[in-house]
């Protein structure tokens, strides 16, 4: 219609669907590259931690998973805000596509943390503020998924879920700052740009793994959003055409 670059065009499912399909392989590949590099640095090169022995290597999963669990929630809340403000169709789909991956990351954070806690603290689980708030985060993800699943009308589900996401977003700063606010067992922040307390190889391994998890999450979300789009837009012509041609 207009020659101008039109942002709305990309937020229309019909354009976004093939775009997402084209991007997925790249994200998967980049994620795999980062993953290999990160694992190589972290598992093979990085030295032993003088306090924690080799057990610290869990950090290469634990921290990326923890970061992603919080980050994905923030992204979902962002989409929710967009959706509620501008009533775009895509935003609700994105939030719903992200939720399972976010929940998975929260689960991984808890799981690896628990496996780490046993050798370091002598218990699988302690009721420390950070651990608890991460658990709350998992519950928020599950609550969001349960709520959207319970509402059959997708537009209503998007709006109600979005509202819940915005209300629950207060939990994120609580998780992040919990180590500062309460004096707890869990380790404080050790990634510091100016002066890091970690060996450089460790730090780089962790950052590479974080990139790997990030790209992985994007790829998963894109894959999932494509299915959601087909489902929701099944009465539009573009989906009908696509499905009729797609005999796989």
């Amino acid at each position, binding site marked *: 219609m207009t020659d101008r670059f039109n942002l709305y065009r990309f937020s229309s499912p019909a354009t976004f669907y093939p775009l997402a399909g084209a991007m997925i392989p790249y994200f998967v590949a980049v994620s795999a590259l980062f993953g290999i590099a990160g694992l190589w640095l972290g598992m*093979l090169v990085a*030295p032993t931690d003088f306090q924690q*022995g080799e057990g610290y*290597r869990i950090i290469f999963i634990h921290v990326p998973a923890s970061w992603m669990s919080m980050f994905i929630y923030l992204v979902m809340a962002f989409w929710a805000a967009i959706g509620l403000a501008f009533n775009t169709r895509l935003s609700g789909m994105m939030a719903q596509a992200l939720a399972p991956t976010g929940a998975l990351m929260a689960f991984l954070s808890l799981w*690896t943390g628990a*496996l780490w806690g046993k050798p370091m603290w002598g218990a699988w689980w302690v009721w420390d503020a950070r651990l608890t708030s991460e658990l709350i985060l998992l519950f928020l993800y599950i609550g969001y998924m349960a709520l959207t699943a319970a509402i059959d009308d997708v537009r209503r589900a998007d709006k109600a879920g979005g509202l819940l996401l915005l209300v629950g977003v207060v939990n994120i700063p609580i998780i992040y700052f919990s180590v500062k606010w309460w004096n707890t067992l869990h380790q404080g922040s050790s990634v510091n740009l100016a002066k890091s307390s970690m060996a450089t190889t460790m730090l780089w391994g962790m950052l590479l793994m974080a990139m790997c998890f990030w790209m992985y999450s994007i790829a*998963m979300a894109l*894959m999932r959003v494509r299915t959601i789009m087909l489902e929701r837009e*099944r009465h539009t012509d573009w989906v009908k055409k696509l*499905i009729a041609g797609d005999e796989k």
Partner: protein
Amino acid sequence: MIHWASFSDFLAMGGYGLYVWGSFGVTAFVMAIEPITIRRNRSATIIRLQRQLRAETRNAAQ
């Protein structure tokens, strides 16, 4: 440059093998399962939609 003396050392992880490999194993498992379920879901959806579409066109033809 490689930190480990032998492969068994690598597996033992300085005595923390169970915990480290428990973490990595579950993570790898979950990350492998997730895309598979998404794909499954997707093809199931497509098949269902195709069935619905066929039913619709049949009804419209009648």
